[in-house]
Each structure stands twice: as C-alpha cells, then as structure tokens.
C-alpha cells in the first residue's frame, strides 16, 4: 500500500508535511502577542512562512490580514488539488463542502436583507467558491431559491429527502445549514470508510469526533431556545461515537447539568471542566473542543501514507488563522490582557 500510495500521492504528502512544518511555532506566537499595533503584527507575519503577503497593501486592518492569510491557504490548497488524482481529488472536494455550505448560508441571509450580491460575494470564503454561487441572486421565490441554491450546485447530494421546495422558504437558514452539514458529514464518513486502510482509520476517528462535537454544541446552544427535540435530532450527525440512544436523550434534555452528565458517560466529561488558564471566562466549551481537535489533527501526522494529513493540514491552518486574528482583535481593541486566550497548536 505504501508503495502504491507514493507513486500517486507521495509528492503531495511530502508537500503538505512541508507546509505543516512551516506553521507558526510557540516563539512566533510570543512575538505576535507582544506587538503593539496591527502594523507590527503584519511585519511579524511577514517574517514567518507566510512571507511577503502584504507587499502591495497600504491600509492596515484586521479584515485585510484575515483575507491575505486565507488567500495563502487557498493558494496552497489549490496547488495540492491541481496535482491530485482520484480518489484524493474527491477527498479534497469534501474538505471544501463545509465552506460552500457556509457561503450559501451567508448569501441567503444577505439576500433576505436585500444586500447587493457583489458585496456578499466579497464576504464569502474563497475555499467555498463554486460557479453557481452567483446564480442565487436571480431567484425571486423560495422555490427558485431552492432550485438555484441546492439542486444545481455541488451541495445537491447533501439535501435531506424530507426537504421540499414549498417549505424551504419557511425554514431558518441556520436549520438548513445544520441539516446540510449533517448530511455532508455522514457522506464524508461513508466515503472515508470506503477508502479503507490508514485513511479510513484516521479520518473516521476525526470525523466521528466532529460529529460528537456538533451534537453536544447544538444541544448546549439549543437549551435556551424553542427548538423542538425532533428538530434537534434532525441536525445530529449519526456517524459519531455517541450511540443512538444518547442522541435521542440529548435531543430531549433541557438542563445543562444533564448534558454534562450525558457527556461524562460518553467520555467527553473533560470538556465541561474549568481550566486554569481561563481567567476571564472567555474559554468556553467550543474552545475546549478546538483544543482537542487540534491535538487529534496533529496526531494524524504520526502515521504515513494516508489522506488524513491533507484534512488535518487545512483544519490546523484554519485554527492558526483564527489564532492570529484573535491576537489582532485584542491589539486593535486595546485589550491585550486577553491576547493569550488563543488555542495553542501542539506541533512541537
């Protein structure tokens, strides 16, 4: 398998491991947290593997930094994608689908508020661009929106069978997003299982963690809302380690303590413990999941000859971008006492 893997994808695995080795180290983060201004942050970033990404920019802002960092990742991803063959090409397309779902949700929200399409397209994540995205604007009814958004796009295969064009307009965008994401995650899980070997071992573990994380996060966020147990259950991906009984129980829980007990039982109890670093109450449940996700993604590099390294690289790089933007926001808002609340990536 290793020989067969290397003939097709060995070069790309080497490339992505090189990209991963260029990610920010602890010393780079220390340098960033000690910056006094956005300009200093940009100078520090240019001294890392990101290089001279701000060469042609004169105005300094957090949005600009985020845009340039995203373009760097997009460039690297496109390079890998352009040189890949099947089934790696399909695997890499699966990595893009969540960003497509996010872009479609953003466009629907923006169009509902009568914002111009050109401005909305600028706000979309470039990893989630696809040709039919701009066609959403021409839809004048929910039926046309349903067809334009979901039927004629790469997201068509993730539409749940119970979706109808007549009722599409009545469903909240967040619920549509949750349903699409569930379908996507289960499809990705089945695809990785079909690939077999080390890819299946590594990716199924990562995706089942993602599924459990979605279940717990949706449950906690839905507690103060009027979302029915049935609606919650529809959004829960079933490819996680939480059994069906746990999913049904979580969909009916209305109390935070019971969610905690359920997660203790399922092995996620540590997510709800307080951590010493959190002095301002900023580090919440989602942050703890991010920490565990970072650890799992770093561990995927301990094995060779599998596609999980590509998935893990994109996830770790996204986390790195979020960390840099958090540091920039703290500096821009003059709240540097909170600058260390980023999620460290245990690369070393």
């Amino acid at each position, binding site marked *: 398998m290793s020989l067969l893997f290397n003939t097709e994808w060995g070069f790309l695995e080497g490339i992505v491991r090189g990209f991963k080795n260029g990610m920010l180290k602890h010393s780079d983060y220390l340098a960033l947290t000690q910056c006094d201004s956005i300009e200093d942050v940009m100078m520090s970033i240019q001294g890392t593997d990101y290089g001279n990404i701000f060469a042609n920019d004169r105005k300094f802002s957090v*949005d600009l930094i*985020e845009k340039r960092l995203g373009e760097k990742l997009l460039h690297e991803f496109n390079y890998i994608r352009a040189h890949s063959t099947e089934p790696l090409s399909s695997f890499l397309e699966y990595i893009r689908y969540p960003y497509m779902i*996010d872009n479609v949700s*953003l466009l629907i*929200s*923006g169009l*509902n*508020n*009568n*914002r111009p399409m050109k401005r*909305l397209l600028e*706000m*979309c*994540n470039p990893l989630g661009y696809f040709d039919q995205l701009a066609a959403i604007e021409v839809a004048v009814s929910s039926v046309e929106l349903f067809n334009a958004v979901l039927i004629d796009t790469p997201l068509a295969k993730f539409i749940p069978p119970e979706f109808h064009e007549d009722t599409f307009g009545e469903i*909240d965008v*967040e*619920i549509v997003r*949750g349903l699409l994401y569930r379908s996507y995650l289960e499809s990705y899980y089945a695809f990785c299982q079909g690939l077999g070997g080390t890819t299946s071992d590594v990716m199924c573990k990562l995706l089942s963690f993602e599924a459990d994380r979605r279940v717990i*996060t*949706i449950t*906690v*966020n*839905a507690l*103060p*809302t009027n*979302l029915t147990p049935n609606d919650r259950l529809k959004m829960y991906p079933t490819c996680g380690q939480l059994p069906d009984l746990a999913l049904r129980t979580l969909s009916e829980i209305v109390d935070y303590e019971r969610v905690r007990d359920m997660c203790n039982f399922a092995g996620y109890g540590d997510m709800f413990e307080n951590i010493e670093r959190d002095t301002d*109450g*900023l580090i*919440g*449940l*989602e*942050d703890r999941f*991010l920490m565990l996700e970072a650890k799992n993604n770093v561990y995927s590099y301990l094995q060779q000859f599998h596609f999980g390294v590509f998935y893990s690289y994109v996830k770790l790089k*996204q986390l790195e971008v*979020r960390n840099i*933007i*958090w540091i920039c*926001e*703290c500096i821009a*808002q*003059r*709240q540097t006492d*909170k600058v260390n*609340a980023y999620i460290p990536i245990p690369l070393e």
Partner: protein
Amino acid sequence: MVAEKLDKEAAGQLLDAMYLDMFHLIEEHTQCRVNLERANASGAILLARTRFQAGGCNSVSKAQIPTENSAEFNALCRVIKAKDENEVNIERHEVDKANGYVEPLHWFSVLPPMSLRHAVTKFRDCIELVAESTNLQRQLTDVLSWISKLRQSVLKQ
C-alpha cells in the same frame, strides 16, 4: 447689617453644599462612563470570541444585519421620559415576532453560542449605563446652573 451677614453665611453654606453635590455627581458620572467603556469593550471582545469559535468573520457578519430595505420591525428598547421630566428611562418590550418585536440575536443564529449571549448581556448593560449617564449629566448641568446663579446673587449683595 446683621441680617445681611446672616444671608451671606446661609448663601455660602448653600453654595458649599451645592459644590459638594457637584463633586459627587462628577465622580458618579465618571464612574458611569468607565463602566460603560468596560461593558462596551467586553461586548466587543465577546463578539470577536464568537467569530473565533465559529470560524471566520462571517459567523457574526454585517450581511446578517437588516438594512433599510429589509422588512420593518419594532425596537425592543426605547428611551422615554421618566415621571421626573428631567430624567430618561429605558422601556423594554417583550419579544413578539407576530407584532414585529423581533429578537436581534436571531439575526445571527437561532442557535447562538454562549459567547454571543454574553455579548448581548453586556450591550444591554451598556444601554442602561447610557441612560444613567444621561441622567447624571443632566443633574450635573442643573447643579452647575444653580451654582452660577447663586454666585451671581451673592456677588450682587
């Protein structure tokens, strides 16, 4: 002459009391402004935290905020005159989607994360503090005006 002297003394004591009031009001007003600044900063950093946790600036985005071309809705929070005409109060309305009183939090998500909910609490506190600051400012203006009048009348004597 004795009466004049007594009048001046009384005016002086009144002026002292008013100056004391003025200093207390300045202190309260400054503290209110500091609290307002703190609450606003906490709200802003919590919004940044929400974007950090959800991934990217589009999770809490301008695209989700209604524009002048969006469907009309009623404000949940209004500034009204208090019983004492010189003061303002905040009137809050319950969420009632059928009658146009929408929950602004739902513009961003029907499943908002905890950080976004905390941000809402902070910005709500900001509104209360703005009203308090306004009332203190008005009281201070009144006291300064009375001090000025009293000083002029004492000088005329």
